[in-house]
């Protein structure tokens, strides 16, 4: 069982939502999870309808059965200062560096340095133990950067290796990589049943695998039930118009005769059905591409009114129902 779950996917496919649902799902039965975000967007706070998260782990939700979800917004600058403090007792010098823009410099000019700080903090939480020697968190879920950047982000070792060949940053990168490449880690990719996100998912998986980072599952988000299929449409095409008109009329929607209300509904309704069938067909093709990837898949339905807290708990339940992730 992985303990570090990294959730990536194309922008806007639901990374933050799925990461939060997963943190809730993994927290049931009295367990404790940590949900971390790394891009300074306060997406978690928005989702859980709380004020902005500080750079501090705090409980943001209880899961069914008494579990707890904690959250942390990791900030690279703060992580670097902490780190300096921890290893060098820098105190004032740290502040001076910050004033000069050194921290900004270090955390932005070399994305690798920045990433090693962010992933480093998450890995630290994964490995952290309490006095009794038990893990503080049963699982850590990361709302990670999108697919296009995820491999670079996680493969900090390569990134930093070219930059820092020795020294503490180098060592830190090594330590982080040991966790990220171990079975303790699983990268999950969120996708929609659309061409671009599916393509990105396939590309992302190939990249992650090439980098030796373990891939977990594919979460297919915002699925919609197929209300009609091609079979139905064929029936329609075979001239069932009269029958449909009768049925509509029978259901109280007006006259079935030519020019009657029910009859006039048929064209627009059939047009919508054709569009629907086209979409279902596309989705089916995308679904096939996803299953061909040979990874476990999970499906989450589209919540018609958007995701509120109740909806989020519902998604968490659906994830759990689909087996261990």
């Amino acid at each position, binding site marked *: 069982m992985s303990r570090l779950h990294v959730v990536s996917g194309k922008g806007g496919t639901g990374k933050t939502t799925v990461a939060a649902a997963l943190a809730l799902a993994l927290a049931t039965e009295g367990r404790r999870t940590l949900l971390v975000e790394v891009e300074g967007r306060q997406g978690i706070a928005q989702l859980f309808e709380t004020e902005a998260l500080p750079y501090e782990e705090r409980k943001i939700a209880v899961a069914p059965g008494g579990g707890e979800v904690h959250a942390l917004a990791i900030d690279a600058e703060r992580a670097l200062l902490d780190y300096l403090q921890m290893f060098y007792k820098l105190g004032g010098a740290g502040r001076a560096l910050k004033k000069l823009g050194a921290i900004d410099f270090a955390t932005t000019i070399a994305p690798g340095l920045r990433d090693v700080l962010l992933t480093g903090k998450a890995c630290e939480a994964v490995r952290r133990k309490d006095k009794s020697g038990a893990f503080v968190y049963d699982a850590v879920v990361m709302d990670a950067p999108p697919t296009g*950047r995820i491999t670079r982000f996680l493969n900090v070792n390569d990134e930093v290796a070219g*930059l820092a060949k*020795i020294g503490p940053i*180098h060592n830190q990168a090594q330590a982080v990589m040991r966790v990220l490449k171990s079975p303790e880690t699983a990268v999950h990719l969120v996708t929609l049943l659309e061409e671009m996100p599916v393509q990105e998912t396939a590309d992302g998986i190939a990249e992650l695998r090439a980098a030796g980072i373990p891939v977990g599952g594919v979460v297919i988000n915002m699925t919609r039930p197929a209300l009609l299929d091609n079979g139905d449409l064929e029936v329609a095409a075979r001239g069932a118009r009269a029958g449909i008109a009768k049925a509509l*009329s*029978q259901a109280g929607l007006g006259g079935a*005769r030519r020019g009657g*209300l029910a009859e006039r509904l048929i064209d627009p309704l059939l047009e919508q059905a054709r569009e629907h069938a086209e979409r279902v067909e596309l989705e089916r093709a995308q679904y096939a591409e996803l299953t061909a990837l040979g990874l476990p898949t999970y499906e*989450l339905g589209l919540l018609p009114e958007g995701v509120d807290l109740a909806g989020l708990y519902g998604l968490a*339940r659906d994830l759990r129902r689909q087996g261990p992730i």
Partner: protein
Amino acid sequence: MTSDVMTLTASAPWLEVDALIDDPGTRIVVCCGAGGVGKTTTAAALGVRAAERGRKVVVLTIDPARRLAQSMGISELDNVPRQVKGVDEAAGGELHAMMLDMKRTFDEIVEGHADAERARAILENPFYQSLSAGFAGTQEYMAMEKLGQLRAGDAWDLIVVDTPPSRSALDFLDAPKRLGSFLDGKFIRVLMAPAKVGGRAGMKFLNVGMSMMTGTLSKLMGGQLLRDVQTFVAAMDTMFGGFRTRADATYRLLQAPGTAFLVVAAPERDALREAAYFVERLAAEQMPLAGLVLNRVHGSGADQLSAERALAAAEALTESCADRPAEEPGPATGGAADGGAVDASPDGDPNSPPYGAGSPPAENLGPDGIVDLAAGKTGSRTPGGPSPAAAAEHTASPSTSAAHLAAGLLRLHAERMQVLARERRTRDRFTALHPEVPVAEVAALPGDVHDLAGLRAIGDRLALRPGEADG
């Protein structure tokens, strides 16, 4: 909620896309918006349309979908505009397109500003490589840089610019400045000091504070890393001023009268909130906003039939199917409406309100409600109480498969009407906030857009006057 629905009448001015792209005074159109809303598609569609209406156009795309790039003949990242084949040039226009190569653009700036040896030193520096490939904001900066180059060349009537897939539309405006001020920062100068004095009596010019600083950095990053940074900074030294000047020049270009921003958004809460921020920001920056492109909007040819009625009718039909071969259609139509609503909410969402919870019945029965004119029967039944038995007196029983199909069509329609209502609410919220912003609506195509035909279809929709039918 009720008031939400009742204020639907607010209508935004129409964004006249053809007038915009036909105007010879329009020289740059920038398509901005949150991730995935359709910026690239809109930019490419505008390019095709403007070219086919007679203008010489170049489209600068960023990370286009693979198939779209292929169909435009720009799958290769060579940073040079290529003429797009298959565009109708009868009106005297042409379309060129390119895909931004951010690293190449950065390299070109370096090569253009440093002698060969210095340029090579920079290009080979690991820090430069990291910066040019991955600095958050490099892509935005390079997009602006490329825009500046294209504009300076003055070979085009119209430049259409796509913007990077950033999480926020604001990044496009902010990132270049961030990069500029960063490269211009104090810290860079501190780092530069030791490298500049180099092997000479160097260190004594540094005050104690600074040497402590570089000492700390050296400890932290490893000596070699610090040296790389210093060499990089020293080599780039002469260019920093250049970066800022260029960024400033492009920024001014964006404020010029020939520039028009189009904010692309999906009719969803987050995307429109983002669009609203962006609109406010453009105003603050005195950048000319042409309007909002609301992309992937849904419509229905049967929008006189409400979701509630459609569901109730579907339920009644399903029951009558289930009852067969029993002669009488099921009588429990009141409860059927509820059943239908619950059925229709996707599984896993028991918490979301059933269809229609947000709409008052007043909307369900529009002025021309459902009245069976042909049969001379009024259809003003309550949403929950269609009366199949009554209808059946006049029509022979439809076959089970037709009833099943009709029920499916009705459920589908109900879903569509739900989407419509939600999109309308979010759009109206935006319009209430920014009534001055012209809007163009682009219908959602059932499939992806990945060829010229698809781009033309988007272009046609872009140019349509919105929503007369749903007035």
